[in-house]
């Protein structure tokens, strides 16, 4: 199989461990004086966006940052809980750049690009250094050194953390770096702004159209490069662990302007989330994977066992992950753990009133911690209560905020009874196709963090999203952007003084006017349909189709049906949606209408991608393709490629393939047994 001529991944020459270092020392640079006249638009202010914007402004570029929230600090990276991976080997347990690289490729079920992943592993260590220098209060040991814990899919302790609020602390670090540049006038902040389109001139990205969400004003912004750091699209499922506002609009509009969409069907279903409690449910809440360090997952051995979990004795419990995967136990990767939970629940062993939940139980490890504390504190002949009380203190320190959150939502005390958990949509590995430079198929348009497809293959390992977002923003884009912008400098110099040049016209260019008119017309259209059904109701219906037919398990018939149902839903949406209020005011319902319209189109592409990929890999599980033991069965002969979809019109896409070549890691059946 050869890659499509439309896709040039621009992977540098050389051995895997030399590609990035050689590239960094030989790429074209932009001199400081020229940087001052180059404008970069950064859309999204999460880990990738904030770190990129701050770093580029420090280098001297003129940067504008856009976010739809009221402050860049609210981006959904803030909600990441468990930790961030880095190959520091501080624990002396055999970690290395190569091992992080290997774990990530294997965890991604051999569907990620080797060169990108190796670079990620290489820069991981610098991320921790950078964050600590900013004053991010990561967890420490008593001796003052940084603390680590384990995450799924690895056998080393390489995860750095700040209680269950690692994303918050890392984002606030990047946010403070960003605000420092705002204060210095190097970054212009456009909060409560939503990007509605990318503006291309002769196929090259030259800026964006954004709506001021407070006044409704439609704005044109020029940029020599546009960086989409807009996160993932999990909200296509309606219920997910994403924030309510998380959306695909920026990426989707870019897709419709020519950016190929990579592997849209690769969705991560996270195994440990609080189960749905009723029809009113608006979102799902994750219980961090870090809990699997100390929580044991089980269901009763008997079907429909209605006893309280604490009344079920040890020998009548099925610790099914420990049983099926003795080597990794409760720390198997997310896709494996999610499917195993679904399998038990589908077989009738689920717990709770919905029977769609399993237990995550901390009793055994609470007792273990209690015994350690008892020994530390020289307490002789402690009572069981004393041991458990001390153990609970340790558990509280590690996961206190998660336990509190669980109790708030469910009304149950997880220190006393096991948590009930079930898988939920959490992350999307797919995203805009990018080359090694993180550039999409539209020159000048980049995608960073979860918005791109690049590093996690078909399944992301825990604590790697924070790593990738910050790697892209702090340590990759500052180098790779220069490759493109150094050419821009030559173009600008050649065009200097010409009346009709891009540099002279900037946002007065007719293409900006055209894009502005199109987006304004779209807003008017939403408001004039005056149908009978709310935006929310369409979103819910889309979510149900996606979850039932393009969720944890997929098959040909379901996907075919889903495509037809989504097409019908789209037609109904444009005929019968009801959006009230006005265009020139703060109008959250109108904002949501645009996002749902884009989700509907994306949903169809996800199903199309899932249908065409006739294999199972990572988070993409096709029921027709599984081993006798129910594990995902890849087809490396026919599907070892990135599916990059080119938009050709509504319901019309062309598939382009990027062949995945494994030169350093032997491609093999994943085993966590």
């Amino acid at each position: 199989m050869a890659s499509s001529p439309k896709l040039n991944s621009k992977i540098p020459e050389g051995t895997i461990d030399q590609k990035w270092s050689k590239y960094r020392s030989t790429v074209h640079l932009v001199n400081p004086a020229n940087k001052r006249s180059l404008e970069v638009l950064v859309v999204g202010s999460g880990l990738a966006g904030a770190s990129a914007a701050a770093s580029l402004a420090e280098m001297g570029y003129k940067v504008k940052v856009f976010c739809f929230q009221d402050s860049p600090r609210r981006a959904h990276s803030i909600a990441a809980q468990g930790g961030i991976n880095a190959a520091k080997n501080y624990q002396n347990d055999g970690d290395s750049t190569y091992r992080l690289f290997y774990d990530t490729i294997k965890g991604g079920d051999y569907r990620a690009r080797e060169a990108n992943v190796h670079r990620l592993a290489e820069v991981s260590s610098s991320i921790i250094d950078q964050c600590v220098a900013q004053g991010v209060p990561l967890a420490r040991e008593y001796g003052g050194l940084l603390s680590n814990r384990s995450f799924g899919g690895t056998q080393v302790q390489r995860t750095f953390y700040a209680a269950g609020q690692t994303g918050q602390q890392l984002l606030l670090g990047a946010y403070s770096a960003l605000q420092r540049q705002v204060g210095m006038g190097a970054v212009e902040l456009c909060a409560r702004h939503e990007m509605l389109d990318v503006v291309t001139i002769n196929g090259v990205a030259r800026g964006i159209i954004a709506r001021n969400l407070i006044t409704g004003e439609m704005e044109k912004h020029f940029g020599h490069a546009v960086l989409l750091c807009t996160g993932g699209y999990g909200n296509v499922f309606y219920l997910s662990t994403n924030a309510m506002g998380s959306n695909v609009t920026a990426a989707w509009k870019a897709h419709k302007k020519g950016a190929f969409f990579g592997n849209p069907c690769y969705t991560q279903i996270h195994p440990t989330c609080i189960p749905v409690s009723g029809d009113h449910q608006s979102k799902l809440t994750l219980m961090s994977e870090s809990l699997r360090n100390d929580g044991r997952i089980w269901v009763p051995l008997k079907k429909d066992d209605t006893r309280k979990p604490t009344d079920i004795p040890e020998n009548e419990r099925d610790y099914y992950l420990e049983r099926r995967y003795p080597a990794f136990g409760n720390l198997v990767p997310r896709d494996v753990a999610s499917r195993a939970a679904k399998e038990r629940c589908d077989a009738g062993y689920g717990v709770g009133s919905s029977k769609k939940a399993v237990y995550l139980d901390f009793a055994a490890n609470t007792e273990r911690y209690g015994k350690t504390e008892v020994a530390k504190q020289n307490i002789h002949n402690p009572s069981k209560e004393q041991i458990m009380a001390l153990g609970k203190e340790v558990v509280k320190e590690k996961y206190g905020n998660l336990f509190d959150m669980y109790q708030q939502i469910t009304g149950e005390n997880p220190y006393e009874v096991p948590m009930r958990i079930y898988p939920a949509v959490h992350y999307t590995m797919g995203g805009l196709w990018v080359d090694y430079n993180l550039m999409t198929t539209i020159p000048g348009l980049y995608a960073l963090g979860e918005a791109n497809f690049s590093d996690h293959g078909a399944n992301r390992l825990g604590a790697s999203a924070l790593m990738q977002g910050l790697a892209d923003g702090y340590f990759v884009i500052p180098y790779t952007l220069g490759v493109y912008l150094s050419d821009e400098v030559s173009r600008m110099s050649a065009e200097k003084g010409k009346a009709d040049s891009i540099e002279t016209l900037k946002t007065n260019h007719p293409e900006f006017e055209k894009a502005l008119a199109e987006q304004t017309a779209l807003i008017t259209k939403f408001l004039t349909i005056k149908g009978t059904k709310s935006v929310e109701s369409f979103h819910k219906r889309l979510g149900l189709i996606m979850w039932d037919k393009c969720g944890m398990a997929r098959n040909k018939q379901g996907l075919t049906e889903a495509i037809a149902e989504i097409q019908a839903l789209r037609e109904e949406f444009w005929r019968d949606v009801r959006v009230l209020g006005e265009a020139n005011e703060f109008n959250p319902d109108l904002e949501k209408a645009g996002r749902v319209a884009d989700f509907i189109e994306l949903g169809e592409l996800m199903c199309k991608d899932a249908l065409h990929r006739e294999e199972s890999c990572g988070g993409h599980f096709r029921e027709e393709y599984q081993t006798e033991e129910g594990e995902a069965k890849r087809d490396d002969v026919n599907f070892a490629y990135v599916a990059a979809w080119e938009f050709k019109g509504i319901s019309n896409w062309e598939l382009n393939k990027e062949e995945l070549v494994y030169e350093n890691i032997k491609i093999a059946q994943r085993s966590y047994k």
Partner: protein
Amino acid sequence: MGSGNGELLNLTLKVWRQKNSKAKGSFETHQLKGISTDMSFLEMFDVLNEKLISENKEAIAFDHDCREGICGMCSMYINGRPHGPKHAVTTCQLHMRSFKNGDTIIVEPWRSIAFPVIKDLAVDRGAFDRIIASGGYVSVNTGNAQDANNILIPKTAADESFSAAACIACGACVAACKNGSAMLFVSAKVSQLALLPQGQVERKERVLKMVQQMDEEGFGNCTNTGACEAECPKEISLENIARLNREMIGASLT
């Protein structure tokens, strides 16, 4: 599921409606029936908004995003208390099991000169971003850092710094304060960095700049009432304000 036991509530809601920052606002009364006690407060608002839309009435604008109590976007003033009746809980994590059948619930936006109302229950908290931009950081450019373990930090200092850094900048402290003071917010950031070795170099400059910006934004003065601490969903301690005052004295004297 949960401990709601399937109980359903009938409620009267009095909600603040205001077209924009310049318009005059007023309360609007709504009746809601059959609200599950397992719902979150914002899910109850979702139900209300769906009802309004079905009646061809404009939905109530309110800020919210993560619905996990961490982004700091939600901001309702419920029955006279920021984030409602429960201690250490954001509005999005408040659940209807905290209310009783037949309750009347009054919902207002944050009220502070420094937080102008945008529409209905949504306010503009840009002042907080500007305070951070004035000095709430360590001036370190990307790529200059030493190995992270070269900086040893006692666990107690790291933990205390983290407790201050847990602030979500929701603005409940300002809304709770009779003076509309932002001291708890500012002191949390000052403390986080003052407690760490990385924050020492700019320690004095930082506190002076941040307090100056806070004053310029129109926040009121602190009179040590403690309402901020009582209402803070993240339990940011009043001790941070004491530390800020010490930092101010230290910085002003030299």
